[in-house]
């Protein structure tokens, strides 16, 4: 056994000494596509964000930090609507969805295999509908007259007497977008959590019971969570990304920009400036800010989850 370990160590060290050319061969095709379609566009966005690029004038003029300064000091729509909306959306769909997906995953793992599989599939299925597919459905449900499903239900229950114009009334728009976001937020992070819990070491649960753990909740806090930190972290990253890249629903339901900017998220803001106003330099600055925010939040999640060790 000891000899075996030693030999493996030596061979690993031996391989570390020289760089194997075949590694580049295997990695190159992926790396090439990655560089061309992910890395270069990101770098280009950074460069563009310092210009007044508008797709017409070439070459664009270098404007330094002007776009960023404008964004932070004089873009009223951004400060008044987009940023608060995005933060609210991210808190509820990101953090709320994250906690919910853990609780759901944990509950599922307390059930027998068949029941768990079926329920997990049902809860995951909304994320299979991502994007455009469900727009028609939401339009039917939130339709503003009596033929709308929600109006019809609420009226027959006596909650409201007049149909509510859900998709026009600005105070309902953001909540609707948030609910739809939550509905479809049980994605692969959720699956990772299920796998993490289901594969946790069962002997620890017995040991825990002997050491005085007296209910499922304590079991969850003291045994399950510490064991599945890596999955928790992966799910956190997925939750952050999910929380910030969603803007489709709002744009498809009520158009872009949304009425009174009520459900305008940062992604919509980018599209608004980039593809409707052709102020692409400015849109690029907003993109860079978005990418930075996502990085920052993931770092924060990372810090929070690893600190507790």
């Amino acid at each position, binding site marked *: 056994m000891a000899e075996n370990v030693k030999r493996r160590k030596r061979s690993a060290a031996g391989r570390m000494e020289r*760089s*194997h050319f075949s590694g580049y*061969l*295997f*990695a190159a*095709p992926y790396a090439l596509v*990655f560089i061309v*379609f992910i890395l270069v566009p*990101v770098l*280009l*966005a950074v460069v563009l964000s310092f210009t007044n690029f508008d797709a017409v004038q070439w070459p664009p003029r270098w404007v330094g930090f002007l776009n960023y300064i404008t964004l932070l000091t004089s873009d009223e729509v951004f400060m008044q609507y987009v940023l608060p909306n995005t933060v609210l959306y991210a808190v509820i769909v990101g953090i709320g969805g994250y906690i919910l997906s853990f609780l*759901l995953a944990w*509950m599922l*793992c307390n*059930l*027998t295999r068949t029941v768990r599989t079926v329920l997990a*599939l049902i809860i*995951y*299925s*909304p994320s*299979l*509908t*991502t*994007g*455009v*597919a469900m*727009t028609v*459905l*939401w339009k*039917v*449900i939130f339709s503003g007259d009596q033929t709308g*499903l929600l109006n*019809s239900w609420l009226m027959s229950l006596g909650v409201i007497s007049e149909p509510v114009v859900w998709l026009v009334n600005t105070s309902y728009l953001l909540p609707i977008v948030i609910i739809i976001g939550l*509905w479809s937020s049980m994605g692969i992070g959720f*699956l990772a959590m*299920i796998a*993490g819990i289901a594969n946790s070491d*069962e002997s620890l*649960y*017995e040991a*825990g*019971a*002997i050491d005085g753990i007296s209910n499922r909740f304590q*079991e969850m806090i003291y045994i399950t969570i510490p064991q*599945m930190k*890596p999955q928790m*972290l*992966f799910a956190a*990253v*997925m939750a*952050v990304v999910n929380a910030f*890249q969603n*803007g489709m629903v709002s744009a498809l339901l009520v158009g872009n920009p949304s009425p009174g900017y009520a459900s305008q998220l940062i*992604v919509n803001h*980018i*599209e608004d400036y*980039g*593809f409707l106003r052709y102020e692409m330099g400015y849109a690029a600055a907003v993109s860079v800010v*978005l990418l930075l925010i996502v*990085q920052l939040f993931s770092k924060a999640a990372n810090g929070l989850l690893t600190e507790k060790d």
Partner: protein
Amino acid sequence: MAYRGRHINPQRFERGQIKILLILLPLALFMALPIVFIINHAFKPMEELFAFPPSFFVRNPTADNFTKLLKFSRSAGIPLTRYLFNSLLVTLLTVALSLLLTTCASFAFSKIKFRGRNLMLQINQIAIMFVATAVLIPRYMVIANIGMIDSVFAHVLPLVAMPVALFLVKQFVDQVPDSLIEAAHLDGANDFQVYWRIVLPIIKPAIATAMVLVFQQVWTNMETSNYFINDESRKTLTFYMNTLVNASNGVAGQGVSAAATLIMFIPNLILFIICQRSVMNTMATSGIK
């Protein structure tokens, strides 16, 4: 009764599970409701679509909406089958290319030592957080400069490199024992043979997972059709379905749109159900350490 512990992965039904079911079932119902509704809506005949008060379930199911969908596209000049063909081609190419590139790179990153490897891995890890819509404009510029506008590759290549897929597959390759690979090398196998004959068969679950993820991404993608393709006849089914959903605001269009939505959703669901076990297997190794 003393607490017994070990409630994770129970073998049979216990009374304690009732509480959990009481919480989970209503939630599952809430999650399933929209999908159940779409299925019902797609099969509703005209009079039920117009019915007041609106009904949730279909009473006399018909396939009218689906036949109408076919007719609708015939009158639009470009047949539905053309969009379907485009979508199938694009999806097939993207998934195949992505799986090939991702597994190759995962093998390199996990099992071959070379300079710059860790840096590349770290960049990929950061790119998991990449938000594609944020860089739509620069992406367009890149694609236009390569001269790929209107080419099938404008659909395919932007979606081939999927950092999450690489991450998941690489984590799985990490579990292939080094001793197995060393033994193969001692027997005279080269790196390609090791990749093809040893690594690929072992990481099948991870490949299935990557397939599910990439498929989902490309099958529902609209951006490539919207921004990188000008020629109508080269756009995908998703794009067409969406124009349909947008164009048909009337109640009559709802049924057709629901049928279209269902057609887009079903392949996704079936693929996931088939691969479900492999996906869960892969997710067990998904952790970020």
